[in-house]
């Protein structure tokens, strides 16, 4: 059997986590290619719909990552994101999408090493959890 290669969608904010990813790259650090970064201007613009859509289309995990509390470029976008992720962590497990498949982290612009480490850990966790039910049931 082929090893399980998950698909993980990461919405990362322009000012912190995307910059950290950039730093990881320029520092020649590597992280799992299963994680597909989508750059957004702020975690506060990640509509719960984006997350729901990703899972319904077969994503095995979704990560939202932005600036640490107090560091948001738009003052409070990350606080709004936190409430929305809290909301989704109530709704999605109700339909069997485990809480741990949805992640919210704060990774600052200078945390290139931490970025690579967290991406590796998340990838390992999702591999351990196995494919999501939507991936297994493509025809839905």
């Amino acid at each position, binding site marked *: 059997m082929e090893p399980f290669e998950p698909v993980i969608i990461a919405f990362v904010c322009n000012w912190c986590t995307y910059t950290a990813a950039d730093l990881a790259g320029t520092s020649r650090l590597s992280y799992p290619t299963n994680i597909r970064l989508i750059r957004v201007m702020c975690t506060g613009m990640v509509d719960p719909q984006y997350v729901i*859509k990703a899972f319904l289309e077969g994503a095995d995990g979704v990560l939202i990552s932005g600036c640490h509390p107090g560091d948001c470029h738009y003052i409070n976008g990350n606080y709004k994101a*936190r*409430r929305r992720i809290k*909301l989704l962590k109530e*709704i999605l497990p109700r339909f*069997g999408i485990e809480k741990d498949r949805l992640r*919210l*982290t704060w990774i600052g612009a200078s945390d290139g090493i931490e970025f690579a480490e967290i991406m590796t850990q998340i990838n390992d966790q999702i591999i351990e959890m196995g494919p999501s039910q939507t991936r297994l049931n493509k*025809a839905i």
Partner: protein
Amino acid sequence: MMTKIEREDNSSAKGLQQFFKQLLEMQEIDALFLPVRLNASTSIMPSLVTDPAQLENAVPLSPSFPLNSARMVSRLSYKASGRKTAVLLRPCETRAFIELIKLKQGSRQELILIGMDCPKALTSSDYAAYAKQAPLADDAYIETVFSDNNDTLNGFEFSSACNTCEHPFPVNTDINILLHGVDLSDGMVVTAETEAGQQVLGRLNLPEATAPARREERIQQIKEGNSTANTAMIEDITDRTDSIVKLNAFFDRCINCYNCRNMCPVCYCKECVFNTDVFHHQPVQYHQWAEKKGSIKLPTDTTFYHLTRMAHMSHACVGCGQCSNACPSDINVFQLFKSVARLTQAAFEYSPGTDENESPPLSVFYEREFENTVGIAREE
């Protein structure tokens, strides 16, 4: 302040009509909003009445609940009209309206909100059948639904939303009409809950009443019964829809008509994203999906739509059941949404419609909260 609405010719329904007639004849009240039987038919629809003579067709208490009127009251009040309107609402309608006030889609500035012990409701299809059997049986209905033995009506089950309702008593109103545990032969009890209510009620010169002795007891009984039914319903529906595959199966009759959204009193967006170009897909898009998955059902985005709606409004769901009532495919949308609402409302400790000053959970945030939502520690 506690006064009495006396019966007319031994009829509670007529007594109530008389009460509303007196209200409308007052100088201070320009219009009444309440259910009215239309064109001598069995259809009872919320109506805005300005002529007291028209109130002979008013049916303040009936098992007909064609829509949640909160949206209609929002239309009447989102801007000043220069008119004072007294509005009669079921408890779930009042709670939904309070949610709309929070979203600046309504105002109680020019309204007198009149609440009532809820007379429960049949689904619209059951009501049509019942009304054929028992047209104009307003008094028989009131006698049945406010008796101790009110589980069914002429053999019809009440809507599951009503049977599982945890708040069937008025809150946030100016005037309340109390009916449970009241000796109806002696008239109904009406109370003023706010200063505005007191001013209006005070001028009607109604006889004084005493607190209905058995009301508290009935409230407890009804709350306990409904709460048990609610827990059982939620367990059952959760079991039937605990995976995406089961959720898809639950909605496999859904035709994306969006009636559930249109009739939802707290689905508050001016323009729903599912009506925008975002979901006006290119023909090639459908082909690509079909090619990727082997086949796709059309219309598409059904489960996506329902999950999105849960994310948008479940925290504000008042459990009125109108989503199910409006479903042409007979899907019990209400049960599903109520089971999700229980989770999201508990997560934010939010109780929709009970406190006007409580902000909707997604409109506020605090620096230190939900900290275990962040990070990658394993929970399961």
